[in-house]
C-alpha cells in the first residue's frame, strides 16, 4: 500500500510538472507580432504600392483567376452597392462582402480576427477612432503608400484629419454621421412652442444661422413634455462621438494631444459642466432616457418632439405620419457650433494576403466618382466634390434631400476635433456606460466623470 501510494504521488508530481512545462512553453512561445508604427508599412509598401495610380484595374495579379478580397462591413446598403459596382468593372479583383450585422459589429469582428492574425480578412470598416488602436497594435497597414498627397486632397479636410494619426493616413473615410435635430412639428404646435428654423421651409444659411442653443432646446423640451405628456428631447445614445463636440464647445478635450493621458483632460471642469447639464436636462423632464439602444422608434411613433439625428437618417421624415422637419445641430450659448462627424473608415488588414488588390478597392471607393454617387444615395460622402456639390446642386433644393445640404454645411463649417488615442475603443466603451448612468441619474456627474477618468486612465496604462 505504501509503495503504491508513493508511486501514485510520484506519478502525480510528474504529471503536474509536465502540465506546468506545457503551459509555460505555450505561453512563452506566443506569436511575436512586431507591428511597427512605420516599419510594417515600409515593409509592405514597396512591393504592394500601386505607386499612387491604379495599375491593376481589371487585371488579376497572376493574369488568371480573379483575386478575391474580403470586406467586413456593417449592413448599410452602400457597401453592397460598392461591391457590386467595383466587381462589375474589375473582373480581376472580386470583393466579397461579409455582412457583420449591426453597426459596430464589424469592429468587434475585426478585433477578434485581427487578434488571431486572420489572413483571410483583407478590409474592414472600423468604428469611430478604432483604427488608431488597430494601427498602434500593428493590426492595420497605413495607406500612405497607396495615395499620393494630391489624391488625399480629394477628402474634406476634417475627414482627412480624422483618419490621420502621427502623420499616417489610416483609412478611407466612408461615413459622415454629422448630427442634426429632428423635429416633430405637431408636438411643437400642440405645446404652443415655436420650433427652430428647419430645412423644410428655410434655406441652409437661415437654418444654420438660426440654430438653437442647447439652453433653448432644454427649455422647449420641458415645456412640450409638460403640455403634451410626450418626450421633449431624446439623445438616442450618449456615445463618445455624440458628446465630445458638446464638451469641446465648453473648452474640454478628451485626451492629451498624444492621446495617452486623460487625467487633467477628461476630469476638467468643462466635462463636469457638461455632465451636470446632461443630467439636469433629463432630470427636469426636458429630455427622456431611451433604452440603451440606438433607435428612433419612439420618434417615428410620434412620441418625441426633438431627437438627435445622424446624416444617414436624412429621409426619416418620409416615414412618419406627423409634420416633420430637421434643424441644425444646437450649440451652447455663446459658444461656436461644433458638429460631430462619427466617422467610420475602411482599413487594410496588416495580415491580408492581397494587399495590392485590396488597396485597389480602397482607391476606387476613395477616388472614383462612381463610388461617390453610390455613397450619396445613402448618406453624405467624405469627398470635397460631392460634399460641396450638395450645397449648390438643385437636386438638394427640396426637402428632405435638402437635409443632406445641411449635413454638408455643418461638415464643412462646424467640424469638431475627433479624439485620437490608441485607447479609443476602451474609452468609448467606458464612456458609453458612464454617460448612460449620468443620463439616468444612477451616478452623480462628479461620480461619473471620476469613474470615467479613472477607468480610461487604467486603459491607457499599457500604451504609455
Amino acid at each position, binding site marked *: 500500500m505504501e509503495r503504491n501510494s508513493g508511486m501514485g504521488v510520484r506519478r502525480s508530481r510528474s504529471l503536474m510538472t509536465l502540465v506546468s512545462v506545457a503551459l509555460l512553453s505555450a505561453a512563452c512561445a506566443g506569436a511575436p507580432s512586431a507591428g511597427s508604427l512605420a516599419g510594417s508599412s515600409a515593409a509592405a509598401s514597396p512591393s504592394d504600392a500601386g505607386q499612387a495610380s491604379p495599375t491593376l484595374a481589371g487585371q488579376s495579379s497572376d493574369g488568371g483567376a480573379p483575386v478575391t478580397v474580403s470586406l467586413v462591413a456593417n449592413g448599410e446598403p452602400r457597401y453592397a452597392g460598392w461591391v457590386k459596382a467595383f466587381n462589375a468593372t474589375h473582373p480581376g479583383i472580386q470583393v466579397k462582402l461579409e455582412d457583420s450585422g449591426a453597426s459596430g459589429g464589424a469592429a468587434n469582428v475585426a478585433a477578434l480576427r485581427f487578434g488571431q492574425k486572420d489572413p483571410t480578412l483583407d478590409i474592414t470598416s472600423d468604428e469611430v477612432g478604432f483604427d488608431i488602436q488597430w494601427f498602434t497594435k500593428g493590426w492595420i497597414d497605413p495607406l500612405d503608400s497607396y495615395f499620393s498627397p494630391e489624391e488625399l486632397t480629394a477628402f474634406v479636410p476634417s475627414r482627412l484629419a480624422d483618419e490621420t494619426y502621427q502623420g499616417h493616413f489610416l483609412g478611407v473615410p466612408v461615413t459622415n454621421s454629422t448630427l442634426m435635430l429632428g423635429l416633430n412639428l405637431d408636438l411643437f404646435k400642440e405645446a404652443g412652442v415655436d420650433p427652430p428654423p428647419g430645412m423644410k421651409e428655410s434655406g441652409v444659411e437661415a437654418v444654420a444661422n438660426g440654430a438653437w442653443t442647447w439652453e433653448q432646446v432644454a427649455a422647449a423640451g420641458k415645456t412640450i413634455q409638460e403640455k403634451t405628456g410626450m418626450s421633449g428631447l431624446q439623445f438616442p445614445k450618449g456615445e463618445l462621438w455624440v458628446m465630445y463636440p458638446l464638451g469641446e464647445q465648453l473648452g474640454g478635450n478628451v485626451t492629451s494631444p498624444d492621446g495617452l493621458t486623460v487625467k487633467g483632460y477628461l476630469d476638467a471642469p468643462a466635462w463636469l459642466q457638461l455632465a451636470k447639464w446632461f443630467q439636469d436636462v433629463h432630470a427636469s423632464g426636458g429630455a427622456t432616457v431611451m433604452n440603451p439602444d440606438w433607435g428612433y422608434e419612439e420618434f417615428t411613433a410620434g412620441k418625441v418632439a426633438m431627437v438627435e439625428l445622424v446624416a444617414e437618417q436624412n429621409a426619416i421624415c418620409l416615414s412618419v405620419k406627423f409634420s416633420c422637419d430637421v434643424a441644425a445641430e444646437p450649440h451652447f450659448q455663446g459658444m461656436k457650433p461644433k458638429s460631430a462627424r462619427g466617422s467610420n473608415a475602411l482599413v487594410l488588414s496588416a495580415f491580408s494576403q492581397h494587399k495590392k488588390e485590396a488597396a485597389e478597392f480602397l482607391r476606387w471607393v476613395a477616388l472614383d466618382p462612381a463610388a461617390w454617387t453610390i455613397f450619396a444615395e445613402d448618406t453624405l460622402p467624405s469627398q470635397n466634390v460631392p460634399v460641396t456639390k450638395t450645397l449648390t446642386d438643385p437636386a438638394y433644393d427640396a426637402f428632405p434631400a435638402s437635409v443632406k445640404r445641411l449635413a454638408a454645411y455643418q461638415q464643412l463649417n462646424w467640424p469638431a476635433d475627433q479624439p485620437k488615442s490608441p485607447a479609443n475603443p476602451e474609452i468609448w466603451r467606458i464612456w458609453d456606460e458612464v454617460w448612460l448612468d449620468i443620463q439616468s441619474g444612477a451616478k452623480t456627474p462628479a461620480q461619473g466623470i471620476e469613474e470615467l477618468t*479613472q*477607468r480610461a486612465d487604467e486603459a491607457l496604462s499599457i500604451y504609455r
Partner: protein
Amino acid sequence: MSRLFRRGRRPTVRYHAGAPPLRHWWLPYALLTPAIVLIVVFGVFAIVGGFAVSLQGERFNSGQAETVFVGLRNYVAVIGSSIFLKSVAATVAYNLAANPLLVGAAIAIAIALTRAGRMATFFQSTLLLSVCLSWTVTLLIWRSILSEGGLANGIFAALNLPAQPFYTSASQALWVTVGISAWAGVGFWALVFLGALKAINPDILEAAALDGATAVQRFRYVVLPLMRRTVLLASVVLTASNATVFVPAQLLTLGGPDNSTHFIMYEASQKLFYDGRPGEAVALVGLLMIVVFALVFVQFRVLRSDDA
C-alpha cells in the same frame, strides 16, 4: 469497474465486484472515447490554450507593438482595475439570488405538478415553452414588457400604481435579470425535480405520514434528503451557468445602471471584442473558473449523500 490489468493476464473488466467479466473488455472504453475526445479537445485544450493566452500581452516599445510573455501581468491588471470588485459583486449577488430562487421555485412547481391530475401534461408542456426560447428572444420579450411604456407599467397605471424603472434603475436592474433568468430556466428544472419526486417510493411517505409527520416535516426530512443528488446536480449546473451570466448585460443593461449588472463575463467579453485585449479577457475568465470550481467543490461537500 474492478482492477483491469493483471501482469501477464488478459484484462478483466467487470461492472462491479462479483459481476461476471465482460466478454469484450475494450467495450466500455470504446464507448467512452468519443466523449473523452470531445472533452479533451474542446475542454482541456481550450483551458490550456486559454491559460497560455492569459500569460501573453502586448508591449509597446519605441513605436513597436509586440506580443510577448508577460507572466501574471494580465491577472494583476484585471484584479487591480477599478471595475473588478464591482464585477465580482454583481456576479456573486446574481448567483446568490438566482440559484436558490430557481431551485426553490422549480421544486415548488414540481410538487404542484404532482397534484395537477389530468392537467399535468398540459402544464409540463407549457413549462417547456420558456426553455425553447433563446436568451435573445427572452430578453426582447421582457424588455418590451418592462420598458417605460411597456405592459408592466401599463398595468401599474391602470391600478394607479407608480411606474417602475425596472432595468433602468440601479436598485432594480439586478433583480430584473435574476427574475428573467428564473423565468427562463424554471420550466426545465421543474421537470427534472418532477422526475426525482416521482422516483421516491410512496411507501416511505406513507410511513412518515402514519408516524405523524406533517406535510412540511415529510418534505424536510424525507423528500428533500432523497432529492439531494438532484439538488446537487441543479446547484452545480446553475452555479456554472449563472457564474458566466452575460447576455442580459449585453442586450438589456449594458452592465449598468451604475455597474449593478456589470458581470465578470460581460467585462471579459467587452475586453475581448471591444478593447482588443484577449489576454486580460481570458485572465478574467480564468479567475472566474477558479471561483466556480471552488463553489462546486463546496457544494459537493455540503450536498453529497452518505451513500455516494
